[in-house]
């Protein structure tokens, strides 16, 4: 995976240190900001909580944190995943494959509701938590290290 990142980065590569591991393997910082896009839906609630705290500990006060991933009302999961599958199919993915991957997502990803995601951000030490992105089954928030 990081090999693909290296290729994608091209001439930007010298500005970036690629590390394989978990949040505990990241330098202690402090960093001026952090982002976690399309990743946290892989982490179950407790691990997500722990990871968000560890991100917060690596940020300077007042730094921004941005996250976006699968997040929708869990009692409406089928409807939102069907909409995301329809979006993928309209982008050129095989419709049967798009529907099958929606089923896999529901079965294997520990998806949380938007309310749960926001509560985790606040509990991890982020304030001014704001929704900035919503695209069918995906949501994105920005928070400020407090």
């Amino acid at each position, binding site marked *: 995976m990081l090999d*693909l990142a290296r290729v994608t980065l091209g001439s930007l590569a010298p500005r970036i240190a*690629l590390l394989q591991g*978990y949040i505990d393997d990241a330098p202690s910082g402090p*960093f001026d900001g952090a*982002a976690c896009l399309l990743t946290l839906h892989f982490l179950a609630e407790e691990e997500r909580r722990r990871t968000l705290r560890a991100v917060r500990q690596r940020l300077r006060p007042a730094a*921004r944190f941005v996250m976006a991933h699968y997040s929708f009302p869990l009692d409406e999961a089928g409807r939102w995943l069907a909409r995301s599958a329809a979006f*993928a199919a309209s982008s050129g993915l095989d419709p049967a494959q798009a529907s099958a991957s929606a089923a896999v997502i529901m079965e294997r990803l520990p998806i949380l509701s938007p309310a749960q995601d926001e509560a985790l951000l606040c509990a991890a030490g982020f304030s001014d938590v704001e929704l900035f992105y919503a695209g069918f089954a995906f949501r994105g928030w920005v928070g400020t290290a407090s």
Partner: protein
Amino acid sequence: MVSYMSRDTSLSKAFSDPAAVARYAEGPPRKVPGFADLQRMAMLLLSERAPGAADILVLGAGGGSS
């Protein structure tokens, strides 16, 4: 800037299979509405508080697009 990525679940197989990794780069733009603009908005939100030469922690390097 620092990025890292790894999964210790059965999903890790997908992230270490070269063919699957090659396909990965074309996946998110087709599945995530406004994928490129999501990246751009993230950059702009971070810029609100980060100095010009900033150290940014990216958790989940994906295919390098972040």
